[in-house]
């Protein structure tokens, strides 16, 4: 069993390279998200895995079998489409049993498996309804049942939650994750919603411009985004040009030094070199006392914490975001320091400035898990 192996996959559509030399491995039983903005090639990749699009070059293998040129009806994959694609002229039961009936199984076997699957997705009592009589969430579950009842080697989900309202989405994605783990089915899940990706995936492939920017688990992506694209796409990160000096950073046009005690334990960072400095809002420390280095521009309450938008002294262009506890007084002038920062050059992560982790080693570990 070796799951899904994609090697050097490329596809051009209408003269534009949509998928560019993409390689990806999905271990059996894993749920992997292809995450990226629209037009990044994630759906095209999924359609090539499902067999609906022919690749220009590269190979796709599922459990050791090369399926690159196999038509969709003979691939061991099952897809849940974005708009569910339920057949409107068939009942729920007919929709789910369609694939099994093609496989010339005995009638009672088909009945048994379909009923079991409908029970799994909590739709047993809706079996004789037509899709138009179901709610969006129910249609979504029928589509899932239709795919899962065939016991595919690989489940493909194309933005399956984008048509559901926000509240339902959270419930259904947990349901999908639970069923996927219970059946231990390898799954590729396409989404543009980072929340969705971070909460249900074993690993996430962040895509941009037809390439995988980083392939890592949720924690790795958030903690050590390897490129500035990933850094800006996953979570919130304030990025500004800056230099190291005087035990802190000189950022943008600002003249004040933003302290960063962790710099002391991060030797080997060239002083005077221009970096792109990325800081997560939770790593920004804000104090009312001390020598003020920034002013509060805006305060956004989030319930149990609040978000401050800060403007560094002498620098009008960069907005620095900080999460602070609701009790923190936010006067006009504050002093700012960084507990942790990431240094990028040419869009790639070079240094992690943190009190605990020796930087290069940590990046090395995260690199080892990345597809070439």
């Amino acid at each position, binding site marked *: 069993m070796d799951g899904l192996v994609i090697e050097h996959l490329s596809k051009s559509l209408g003269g534009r390279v949509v998928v560019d030399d993409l390689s990806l491995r999905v271990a059996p039983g894993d749920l992997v998200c292809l995450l990226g903005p629209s037009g990044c090639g994630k759906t095209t990749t999924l359609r090539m895995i*499902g067999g*609906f699009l022919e690749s220009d070059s590269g190979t796709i293998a599922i459990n050791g079998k090369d399926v690159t040129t196999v038509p*969709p009806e003979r691939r061991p*994959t099952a897809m849940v*489409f974005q708009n569910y694609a339920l*057949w409107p002229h068939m009942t729920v039961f007919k929709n789910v049993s369609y694939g099994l009936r*093609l496989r010339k199984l005995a009638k009672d076997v088909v009945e048994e498996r379909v009923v079991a699957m409908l029970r799994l997705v909590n739709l047993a009592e809706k079996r004789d309804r037509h899709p138009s009589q179901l709610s969006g969430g129910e249609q979504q579950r029928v589509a899932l049942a239709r*795919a899962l009842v065939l016991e595919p080697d690989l489940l493909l989900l194309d933005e399956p939650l984008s048509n559901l309202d926000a509240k339902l989405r959270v419930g259904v994605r947990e349901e999908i994750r639970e069923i996927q783990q219970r059946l231990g089915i390898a799954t590729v899940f396409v989404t543009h919603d980072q929340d969705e990706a971070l909460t249900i995936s074993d690993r996430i492939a962040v895509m941009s411009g037809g390439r995988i920017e980083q392939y890592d688990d949720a924690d790795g992506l958030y903690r050590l985004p390897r490129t500035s694209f990933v850094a800006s796409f996953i979570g919130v990160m304030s990025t500004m040009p800056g230099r190291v000096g005087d035990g802190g950073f000189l950022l943008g046009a600002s003249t004040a030094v933003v302290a960063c005690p962790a710099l002391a334990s991060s030797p080997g960072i060239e002083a005077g070199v221009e970096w792109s400095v990325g800081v997560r809002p939770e790593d920004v420390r804000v104090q009312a006392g001390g020598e003020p280095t920034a002013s509060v521009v805006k305060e956004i309450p989030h319930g149990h914490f609040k978000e401050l938008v800060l403007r560094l002294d002498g620098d009008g262009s960069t907005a620095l975001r900080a999460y602070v506890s609701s009790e923190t007084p936010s006067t006009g002038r504050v002093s700012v320091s960084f507990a942790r920062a990431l240094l990028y050059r040419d869009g790639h992560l070079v240094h992690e400035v943190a009190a605990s982790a020796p930087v290069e080693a940590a990046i090395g570990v995260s690199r080892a898990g990345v597809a070439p």
Partner: protein
Amino acid sequence: MSSVTAGAPAPGRTSQETMAAPARSTPRAGRRRPLTVRRVGVGIGIALLAAFIFGPLLWLMLWAFAGVWHYPSLLPQSWSLSWWRQIFHYPQLVRSVGLSFTFAPIVTLVSAVVCLPAAYALARFPVPGRRTLLVVLFASNAFPKIGLYITIAGLFYALHLMGTFFGVVLIQLLGTVVFMTWIPAASFASIPRVLEDAARDVGAGRLRVFFTVTLPLAAPGIFVAMVLAFLASFDEAQGTFLVGVPNYVTMPVQMYSLVSDYPPQAAAVFAVLLSVPSVALMLLVRKHVLGGALARGFELR
């Protein structure tokens, strides 16, 4: 009910609205006046249109049951069923009824077999010159048919198709091609391709996908097209007259001789008979026609 409280009904209002008026508040009733005038206008328009459409039919029905009817009397002087009896005892006329009901279904089926694959291809594949083809199909119906038929007749003589069964089927087929291509093509095109993808995904081959997913979903449009083709073939007179006479005289062709050689009663009876299947079929498909399958079919895309 205190309908009197509203005072004198405004001129131009129907009694029903006067009854309803007290239920509404006074300012609203005032604002409704222009609407009422418009309604009356629409009503008159509908009445005129109905008279225009049903007037001749009514006149036809009267003639079909008339014994003697002279000007200027509004109704026939005497009524009679004798022409109905005569028509049903006239073997040539009975034969033409049989022929019409033979040609129409055959032409419809042949047309479906020829046109439906074309419709599917036009809807699903990037056929070069697709739009031009659709426009040409439509344009073939825009020119006077008789000119076209005369030219075709020359061709048919050369191919020994004149006076043959196949020749009549072929000439009637011409008039059905437009509906049989356009309407089903629109139906096929309106089926999301992802529904077909989903069927292939769970293991169905192309052919099975067509018969279990595409065809059932396009069925209403195809049904409408087949009814229209049936009616087109059933009513076709010019081409059949040219190609079929004297071997194959269908009902509409027979009408020509009835109109010229018999009193109006005979033609009226025959015309009523000729319109029965049309009315029956149109009633049958009115849901689909009104539902937009027909309108969609004639959208230029």
